[in-house]
């Protein structure tokens, strides 16, 4: 089987692998790099469980080839906490009971982080629109909206929060 070399930065760490050209980014992250926090929930890019950041943009990693992501900066759920300090979104999802089975949660948090970078002070309707590419079967979304709003308040109050730092990454 022909392979192709990919090198990319994942959560700040340089990583590389020889992969089949058809390998999906989500499988590179999960099966090759062992970052199993990013999940797969559908085959059709509908559910968003696989959402990560590629060069600062939200992306569904089941619909990106690993070779397409070569050279990119990837951020996954494993890169959100600052050591033992949870990211404000992680803390908010916990505080507000914004998760139940937890399967959609990493993708939901990554999408919410992207959303708050684009719109630091969203209305509830804007939050709902912003996470509408991510399906949750457990929570009915009510507490997810509350969690995103809690994090929005904390992030806008603190310029040193990790998402604010990520916003400085060149997204071009």
């Amino acid at each position, binding site marked *: 089987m022909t392979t192709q070399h990919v090198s990319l930065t994942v959560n700040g760490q340089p990583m590389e692998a020889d992969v089949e050209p058809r390998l999906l980014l989500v499988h590179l992250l999960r099966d090759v790099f062992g970052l199993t926090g990013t999940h797969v929930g559908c085959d*059709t890019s*509908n559910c968003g469980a696989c959402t990560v950041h590629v060069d600062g943009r939200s992306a569904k990693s089941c619909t990106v080839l690993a070779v397409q992501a070569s050279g990119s900066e990837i951020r996954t759920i494993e890169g959100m906490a600052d050591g033992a300090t949870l990211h404000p979104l*992680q803390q908010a999802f916990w505080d507000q009971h914004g998760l*139940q089975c937890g399967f959609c949660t990493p993708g939901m948090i990554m999408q919410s982080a992207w959303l708050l970078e684009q719109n630091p002070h969203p209305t509830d309707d804007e939050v709902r629109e912003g996470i509408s590419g991510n399906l*949750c079967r*457990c929570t009915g979304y009510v507490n997810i909206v509350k969690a995103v709003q809690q994090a929005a308040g904390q992030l806008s109050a603190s310029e040193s929060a990790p998402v604010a730092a990520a916003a400085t990454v060149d997204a071009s």
Partner: protein
Amino acid sequence: MTTELHPQTTPEVGGMGHSVKRKEDPRFIQGKGEYIEDVNLPGQLWLDIVRSPYAHAKIKSIDATEALKIPGVAAVVTGKDLEGYKLHWMPTLAGDMQMVLPVDTVMYQSQEVAAVIATSRYAAADGVAAVEVDYEPLPVVVDPKKALQPDAPVLRTDRGPDKQTNHIWHWESGDAAAADEALANADVRIAEDIYIPRIHVASIETCGIVADWNPIRQQLTMHLTTQAPHAIRTVVALVAAGAGLPIYEHNIRVKTHDIGGGFGGKVPVYPGYVLAVAASFLTGKPVKWIEDRSENLQADSFARDYHIHAEMGATKDGKIQALKVRTIADHGYTDAAADPSKFPAGLFNVITGSYDFPNAFVEVDGVYTNKPPGGVAYRCSFRVTEAVHAIERMVDILAHDIGKDPAQLRMENFIQPEQFPYHTPTGWEYDSGDYPKALQKALDLIGYDELRKEQAEKRARGELMGIGISSFTEIVGAGPSHDFDILGLKMFDSCEIRVHPTGKVLARLGVQSQGQGHETTFAQIIAEELGFPVADIKIEEGDTDTAPYGLGTYASRSTPVAGAATAIAARKIKEKARLLAAHLLEASPDDLEWTNGRWSVKGSPDRFKTIQEIAFAAYTNHPQGMEAGLEAVDYYDPPNLTFPFGSYIAVVDIDKGTGEVTVRRFVAVDDCGNIINPMIVDGQIHGGLTMGLAPALYEQITYDELGNNLAGTFMDYLLPTAVETPAWELEKTITPSPHHPIGAKGVGESATVGAPPAIANAVVDALWHLGVRNIDIPITPPKVWRILHDKGIS
């Protein structure tokens, strides 16, 4: 939630009534949950499945030659291979038979036809694409009513000579003659056909297994997405025994890890599980199978698919007299329901609902069709959703027919608080309830009278707005052993508590969380009973080598059954602690009293021993003649089911141009008895409501006349997103269960059961003046648009 709770423990202890933050969450929010796809074992092989494009066909040949040439493909397994091990059929939980792989005939589209075993996920998929199967299509039976006609082809020719029919079983409940007589004498008599469509739980995590047969140890470990690990272990042991395989129950270990949503879909045994076990047994290597979403939606067990004909009689002023219901249940090609043995139609005869029916009769006929196995739940305790939808629709139709407000008609027909325990005409004993209180609370909260005025004004302007009520009664907590079993296994559940010397606690249960928060709520029950802080209590489930036997988590049974076992086990520990405290305090056990986590001498509150001190003494200073240690186990056999209830009100607006229904407001007043964790209860209701909204407006698996699944991916099977889902408004009443040790009733499915008719009633309410009596769910824009178009409305 504004309903006032009065916790008996401090927030630090975190007993019942505290919104303790979930103990399981830190791993989930950091991407450190361990779901089935995260389990990888050294040397593991991957399994993928060849599936049928036809709904009914003869398999003329299977050619694996090209597949086996693909690098990494190790084997292709067919039904004929399994037949040699007597593993080509397996029992369903309903006692029917299901193919693991077909030997000669496929019975539904996407049925398993062959398994490819390979060294990688991608190689296995390549192998699947290269297996060539030659089919000869057979006549397809899609409509269950046509399946019962004499000229319909018999689908299950494998059954005995006396069972050469597509009719599976007949089940009935109540008094037919009395119901007929009451209907004949009723002033008002209404009848309606109501279809409850086939839907799929579609948990965001699909199903999967890593099967690990160790030939040296003769040990089978099944890492598995299952809601019922112990029952699965026993089923596997029985299947192995039937096949003569040396896999015995003490050498079978089921481990669940974290489960990404279940809702009933992870109760059955799927062919993929058995294939992975067989492949591991044959290769001596771990074998992993993770189904993809298409397989999940097209082949896993389905819910609902009930064709209901309901008749109701009443006096001219709306006093309900009788109910008669005839139903055809489409089970696909095998009855794979997870219902208790005595109840092939589940608890559908709870269909008299919240109302004081003098007479009722219900009958259901199960039917085979060329569809995937049907009859599991969709976050619904054994066919209760179907029952609630039918009765709540009928009550609304009656109200509209006689010109009475639907809220008023319900108030006049409710079982009244003083009638509990209440015996229904179909045999249930409702434990407790206050239905008028719940409905009144919902009416007040939503501002019902104002909404009716607004509706009248809007109707005068030609705008379409509707208000719908659902006053449901749930039936959960299966169940008492004299009536409830699955494949003979009585439906008790269990908890084992071990108190360590330093006052830390490990508790293990026979149920299995799939997101419900068991690690938190069961710790709270122990905290309530024994005074240990929640932080000092670890809950474990889902390892059959360590947890006590239980029937698992479905049908909202965890709190009613395992929660009761937890409280009783804790009370056993409390009683032993009393004896230990008496020894330490040199007092008589009868002279001690329990308060706030300590035994103290009556009248001398300064003479006490804390539960932590007692725990240490249990291992260091126990009296002679007493066993050391502080442990207890309880297998709880509930004396009755529990009956949560509630009243929901939906307000909908309908776009005349598109037919789109928008749920503008939705008030849910729930009563689940005593509340363990208010935050988690609200979360369960939020989720349940959303899984009620889903089939009401969006979700349905449909088939064309050839049995092709028309909603086999998330492109066509529409789960509600955050945009369609309204901001649910919740309230509570609290009516404890009189027979449950902590007065709790269960809550996980109430909202799924109660929500769909509230929405359907609201839509019909908006259109009643146009002559609309019923619209089957899901009420999609095309359905509404067609009605409006036919009525000349735009």
